[in-house]
């Protein structure tokens, strides 16, 4: 995520709506993508994004710059997305499947044929959907957001070895299911 100047954060915490909109324009794509890839549902992702930014607006005054703003907003976004998915699963009494339409939301990567892109997007959603929620959140933060293990540990409030272990299990499963011919020896 692109760094947001401290001055912008301070102005936004003092009620400057222009500064807050600048924060939103910089961070909303990251927040929405996390929400989309964790919940697998567009409406839930929109609601999560809205909740995250209302929470940021409400609590910006108490943000003390001890941790990075990026970690802080990732933490709120991931927790809200996880809670949203859990709530939805509880309501339905079962694991909620990913909405097929979310693949269409994502813009195609440059230089790749649209057919390949379509296939990749569906593959990504199928892979994420197949993972337990905690492992899915780790994979999203690592492979889509590109966070370091230490950052993921801070965002999720878990030990760095737990991050390592969740990623290992998730990828073992994904290689076994989507990794092409042959199996891990």
């Amino acid at each position, binding site marked *: 995520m692109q760094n947001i100047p401290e001055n912008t954060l301070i102005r936004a915490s003092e009620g400057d*709506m222009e500064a*807050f*909109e600048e924060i*939103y324009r910089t961070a*909303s*794509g*990251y*927040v*929405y*993508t996390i929400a*989309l*890839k964790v919940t697998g549902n567009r409406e839930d*992702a*929109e609601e999560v*994004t*809205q909740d995250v*930014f*209302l929470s940021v*607006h409400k609590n910006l005054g108490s943000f003390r710059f001890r941790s990075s703003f990026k970690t802080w907003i990732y933490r709120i976004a991931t927790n809200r997305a996880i809670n949203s998915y859990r709530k939805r699963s509880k309501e339905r009494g079962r694991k909620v499947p990913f909405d097929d339409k979310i693949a269409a*939301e*994502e*813009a*195609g*990567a440059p230089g*790749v044929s649209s057919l390949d892109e379509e296939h*990749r997007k569906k*593959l*990504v959603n199928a*892979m994420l959907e197949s993972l337990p929620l905690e492992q899915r959140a780790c*994979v999203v933060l*690592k*492979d*889509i957001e*590109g966070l*370091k*293990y230490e950052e993921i540990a801070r965002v999720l409030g878990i030990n760095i070895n737990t991050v*390592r272990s969740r*990623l*290992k299990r998730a*990828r*073992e499963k*994904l*290689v076994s299911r*989507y*990794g*092409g011919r*042959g199996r*891990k*020896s």
Partner: protein
Amino acid sequence: MKCKKIQELILTDYTDGEMTAFDRQKVADHIRTCEKCRAFEKRLKENVVAPLQRTEHVQPPEEVWSRIKGAIEEPARESVAESVADFLRGLVAVRKPVLVAASLLVLVLVGGIFAKTYFTGRDTVNTYLEEQMDFLDSLYNGNGYTDEYNAFLTEDLFL
């Protein structure tokens, strides 16, 4: 290192660049000489990690910002209206009846003086005030005004 341990590292630290250069080199040396581990690394990177890493960030629809902005600004407008309403309620609310009664009495007195000034002129008011002051003074000092007043009552009113 055995293949099992190497593949565990391929699944995590090696692929994610979380190893020291020294350890990384040891794993890379093994992969170069072990076909099985090389194939495993290829499957992980090409079929799992690369498709995930190519995921683009998606911008939320514009109405999400409109909803956020609306939710932030609405309570702000409400709070201004609330403050005005509270102020007005505070003016009307009778929290301390004695204080209110005293305030009303002062208002009546001031209003009375004002009315007298308006209808009878400033001199009359001054005279009235002087008389009242003299009366109060006589009550306090006992300078005979009471006697005159008593005489007035006795002689002029009751007789």
